[in-house]
């Protein structure tokens, strides 16, 4: 009987490991940091994320797998890792002044956020359904708490409870899906599932399992009709947490979504592509139409984030190399753009009093021309105007759809972006074309928020004007 040697290769999971260690250090540091120095825990967290990003870079092109094929370090996963690390670092920059102003500056905030990041990285690089589930839970549990972090605010608590209940529900779906797929194929390893399906025909059990997996993913990335939690959670959670959730969770969950379906289940593509196409149409349309009706910026961005998940799903339907890289580019573009938009909203808030109604933005361009310009650029990018990142993202995704014969889906996509132009322009119209509202005087933009905003806006423009390097990185692809 051969002796089983555990296939431990810590280098492959170095990014997740570094983030976890940072979380532990911050947790311990919290005990010895005096109240007025809490911001240093934030800086420490960012430093950890930067180191993790470097680790991910050093693995670029390694295409190694470890832990008996459970985790992989391919360029697809590493690109997502970098995107997630970037979104977390920018969120923390926004958070340090934010949680101070709202008197919730406790070290646990950063610990939970880092733990969630570790889960996301695991999820994005996992090649086994069980490990994907592990990442999913590690990602979700800290977010439930973070959503409810403003303990004095009932809406924040409501957001936490709602997210927890529906999240737990979707985890159950996902787990049940894993069980059924395991029952049908005898394995939870993605490569082995693909191999097994290549030889044998599908069964009803397998189809139901795949369907349940899709439901689980659909919950996490908020596809219609599994999106009902999104507006309330995004609205109630602290704004910085919303900003982080709206981008990073998508990156991680879509990563696993693409990996599972495009890599492990191509044999069933005929079925799930049709379902995904329908979901994409529903998600884009409902997300955009609902966003039209919002008078609150946070809810508008929440619904619009649903719509963006719909666009990304088109890339999955395309099921091609270009589709995969377009999704990666889109996730990166969406990350910097949406964080920029949230950053500008935070920058325009008056200490603990946030301006979240669209009409509150009236005249902002006169009082804060640079912040208004930053918000305008981000909103135009979200709407898909050139020469900003969001346009290139949409261009790549619609290109992948047209290339693979799904031109009608691209047409529905562009019509949806037309709808989105209308609501993204509303804050712009308020800022530039309305008379100033009262209460602008005396607002100072925190330097860290300004820094985050600057990074985001420069990225939005750079990705829009010189997209070639990022597209090249995104084209690294999955290892087979």
């Amino acid at each position, binding site marked *: 009987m051969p002796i089983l040697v555990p296939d431990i290769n810590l280098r492959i999971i170095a990014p997740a490991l570094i983030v976890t260690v940072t979380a532990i250090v911050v947790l311990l540091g919290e005990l010895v940091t005096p109240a007025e120095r809490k911001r240093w825990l934030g800086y420490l967290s960012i430093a950890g994320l930067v180191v993790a990003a470097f680790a991910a870079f050093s693995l670029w092109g390694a295409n190694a797998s470890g832990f008996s094929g459970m985790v992989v370090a391919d360029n697809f996963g590493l690109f997502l890792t970098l995107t997630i690390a970037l979104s977390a670092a920018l969120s923390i920059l926004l958070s340090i002044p934010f949680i101070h102003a709202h008197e919730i500056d406790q070290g646990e905030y950063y610990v939970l956020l880092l733990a969630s990041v570790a889960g996301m990285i695991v999820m994005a690089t996992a090649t086994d359904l069980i490990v994907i589930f592990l990442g999913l839970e590690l990602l979700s549990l800290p977010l439930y708490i973070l959503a409810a972090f403003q303990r004095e605010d009932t809406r924040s608590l409501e957001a936490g409870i709602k997210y927890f209940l529906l999240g737990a529900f979707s985890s159950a779906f996902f787990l049940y899906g894993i069980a059924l797929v395991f029952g049908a194929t005898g394995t939870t390893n993605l490569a082995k599932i693909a191999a097994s399906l290549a030889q044998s025909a599908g069964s009803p059990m397998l189809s139901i399992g795949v369907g349940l997996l899709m439901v689980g993913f659909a919950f996490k990335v908020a596809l219609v009709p599994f999106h009902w939690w999104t507006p309330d959670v995004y609205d109630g959670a602290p704004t910085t947490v919303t900003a982080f959730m709206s981008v990073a969770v998508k990156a991680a969950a879509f990563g696993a979504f693409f990996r599972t379906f495009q890599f492990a289940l191509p044999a069933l593509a005929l079925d799930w592509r049709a379902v995904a196409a329908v979901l994409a149409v529903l998600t884009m349309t409902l997300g955009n139409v609902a966003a039209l009706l919002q008078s609150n910026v946070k809810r508008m961005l929440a619904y619009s984030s649903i719509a963006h998940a719909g666009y990304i799903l088109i890339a999955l339907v395309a099921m091609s190399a270009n589709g995969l890289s377009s999704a990666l580019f889109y996730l990166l573009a969406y990350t910097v753009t949406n964080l920029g938009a949230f950053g500008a909203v935070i920058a325009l808030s008056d200490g603990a009093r946030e301006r979240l109604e669209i009409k509150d933005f009236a005249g902002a361009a006169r009082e804060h021309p640079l912040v208004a310009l930053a918000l305008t650029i981000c909103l135009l990018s979200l709407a898909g105007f*050139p020469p900003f990142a969001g346009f290139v993202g949409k261009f790549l995704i619609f290109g992948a759809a*047209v*290339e693979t014969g799904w031109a009608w889906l691209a047409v529905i996509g562009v019509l949806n972006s037309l709808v989105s132009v*209308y609501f993204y322009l509303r804050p712009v119209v308020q800022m530039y074309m309305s008379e100033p509202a009262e209460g602008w005087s005396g607002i100072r933009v925190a330097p860290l928020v300004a820094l985050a905003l600057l990074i985001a806006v420069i990225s939005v423009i750079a990705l829009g004007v010189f997209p070639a390097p990022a597209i090249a990185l995104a084209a690294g692809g999955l290892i087979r």
Partner: protein
Amino acid sequence: MLAYLSLLIVLPLLGALVLLFVPRQNNDAVRWIALATTLVELAISVALFLSFRSDSAAAQFVERVPWIPQLGISYYVGVDGLSLLMVLLTAFLMVIAIGGSWAGITERVKEYHIIFLILEAAVIGVFVALDLFLFYVFWEFTLIPMAFLIGIWGHGRRVYAAVKFILFTMFGSLLMLVSILALVFAHRDATGVLTFALPEILKTPVPLGLQGLLFAAFALAFAIKVPMFPFHTWLPDAHVEAPTAGSVILAGVLLKMGTYGFIRFNMPLFPEAARSFAPLLIVLAIIGIIYGAIVSAVQRDVKSLVAFSSVSHLGFVMLGLFAFNAQGMSGGILQMVNHGLSTGALFLLVGMLYERRHTRLIADFGGIAKVMPIFAAFFLLVMFSSVGLPGLNGFVGEFLILVGAFQANPWYAAFAATGVVLSAIYLLWMYQRVMTGEVTKPENAALKDLSAREIALLVALVVFIIWIGVYPRTFLDPIQASVTNLLNVVR
């Protein structure tokens, strides 16, 4: 060789960048810097026009740099006679627009001029781009500054007009984006080369089955921009609410992007489809000519009258282009320039009146010629140019178009000619009510006549109005090679 065309795109952006650092209260410095930028831009355009070799239909002053090599996208610019004429028109009207905003714009002057210069860069980009992706980027980007101009410095329902302008135009152009992708991938499937470069795509005919659909999508985007009947409803709103210089540029340059698109993309890319769609487009053009003229006649606001007359004039342009013969097409292209000059001048004149009286209703005026004789003289001349009086630019363009239309089908010319008569009616009737007679309103009795600045602007426009009327060859010769080349493809 120097990168002249890139310089044309970058120069206004540099000007805008400089303006960013001018102190907010120093409005005169802002105006002078903006004017200087547009003047240098015009000088470069003229230099290009003079050194252009008009015996060739190939793109000149070409620059090409890989941009997104993975997708075959490059920064690829160049001009043929048509593009260069449009660049010249843009550079010229931008000077007029900046000069025409001198007194009218007193709020947020710095932002205004920055946005204007960005708009100039984007429009020039549209006319020189030879890569479909690059073209689309510039095309879409022109929307944002124009919408800001209308939305911030406009009148009354400016926000409504700005948003309507964006949504209407985007509806067409987003479908065009999908068509561009379909075209590029069809070309790749046929040749194995993924490229967005127009000259390369033109080398391989587009499959017949695909032509109709793609033509329709491109045509929709351009027809909204032109605007052709029945896609014109955004235009009166945008024009009436826009500030004067915004209207000058909108009518003079942005509408030309639509007709330019038809010539540059629709005709050579999808010649078979262009032939089968031509009767439909011509009928729509003729409806536009007559409808625009009739609606103009009943307007109570001088500016909406001029706005609706644009629908009529652009109908003439479309008629000439789709007659598919040398006279019609040359006339159509020349009429694009003529409309830019005449209608631009009309909007400028209406704006001058508005700055003095803060109203544009015809009923509020009467006998203005007595108070402002110089103004009235310019108004009369520009109006004649718009009507098509021989010796002025409008006559040459409309005559060529009607000759071309007659060759294609005498009925086309017969119906279109009624538009010429109608244009005389609505313009002269308006002139009569506004300018002639006794001064009936006491508010009008003390209006000041034109200032030296205003006269200078109008003289510049009138010089070209007469030049084209007397010696159009200066502007017809450079486009001949392109027209001949295009007609060989389409016919």
